[in-house]
């Protein structure tokens, strides 16, 4: 199976770079975006399996981005990233179609597992729809 294609969306550049680098080393085709609009633009141009999306971002915040992604690319699975848990965010996120939630700081291996699971779901979904 080809590598899973992941897009990391976070306003902190160092975090995105680290993420992209570390995941590329683990058989993940990772790319990064620094904001909601950037992410949407990227999704427009490139196929992505899983989006790892930070909840709190200036400008267009996580939930907004999630809604847009689900509207335009409903098959892309989204994993929400948050600094501190909040029930509200969880309910909202899942209500709008987020697949999973992970809290910072996370274990990179743990995140990898979730990404794979998300991709699995996407594949199943596609099979069903196709």
């Amino acid at each position: 199976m080809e590598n899973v294609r992941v897009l990391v969306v976070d306003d902190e550049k160092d975090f995105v770079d680290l993420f992209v680098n570390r995941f590329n080393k683990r058989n993940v085709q990772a790319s990064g975006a620094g904001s909601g609009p950037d992410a949407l633009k990227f999704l427009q141009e490139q196929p992505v399996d899983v989006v790892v999306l930070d909840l709190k971002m200036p400008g267009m915040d996580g939930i907004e981005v999630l809604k847009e992604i689900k509207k335009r690319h409903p098959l892309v699975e989204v994993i929400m990233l948050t600094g501190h848990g909040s029930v509200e965010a969880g309910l909202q996120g899942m209500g709008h179609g987020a697949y999973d939630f992970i809290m910072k700081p996370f274990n990179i291996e743990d995140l990898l597992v979730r990404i794979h699971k998300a991709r699995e779901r996407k594949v199943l979904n596609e099979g069903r729809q196709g």
Partner: protein
Amino acid sequence: MEPLLRSVRGRRLLPLGPALLVLAAALVGRDLTGLPALILALAAAAGVFWAVSWVAEQAARSRLEECRLEEELLQSQKMAAIGQLSSGIAHEINTPLAVIGQEAELGLMELDLPDLKAQAGLDAARDNLRQIALQVERCREITHKLLSLSRKMEAIVQDTDVNALTEDMVLLVEKEARLKDIELRRNYAESLPPVATDPALLRQVILNLLNNANQAVERQGHVVISTDMPARDRVRISVEDSGPGISPENMAKLFTPFFTTKPPGQGTGLGLSMCMTIMQRLGGAIQAASPPGRGARFEILLPLRPNGRGD
């Protein structure tokens, strides 16, 4: 016989009849005389008493079970019907809504034409049209929600680690719970086999239950989250809270759509009915119990394989 069976007292009195008959028969018969005869007669009567009461209990129990299953079936049928109805309505309404919205937009555009733009007297009319557009948008959101509810219920099955998934959700709510002095206790089964289910949908259910539990306790109390395997082919997740519990009147209506015990404005009452629908989609079940003075306990049952087939 039915009414007798239904009440506990009835069930207790029922065996008296046959028992007394036997006793009477024994005494009247009087073949044997003296104390041994009396004891024997009593023993026979007692035996009859226990036998009849046992039978009565069993009959009552199976009848109760029947009734319960009937009710559950009725409930799920109702749910399905409601679901269909609401999505049907939503679809239908969307069309006229779209028209209204468009007309409002057109109206606004007309009022912006060069010869009308300057006239301030038409400001009221502009406001009205804007209001119309706003409210149409609101209606859209409501129908969108209803439709998406029915759409998103399709389960996509993946092997899921139920303990990890549950813990994820617990961690999500833990911070806020701690702020309100609510203790979250975990009681996970040692090793649960992976369950074939839709993790996203399951997460929603668990998060909903945790949220309800926290809101019930309000502050200073505890919520116990446990996982176990009540049978070889199923997994159970339960959320038990130390809140005020649910009154018997509310218990019956608990999973009906739009039912809520929260004050108006808070909560839509969709939560539990949605949970029930999801659980049905997943081939599982959700139950609630509220023993008096001991808060409330919600249980989710999941088959290891959605079709009920064991491994």
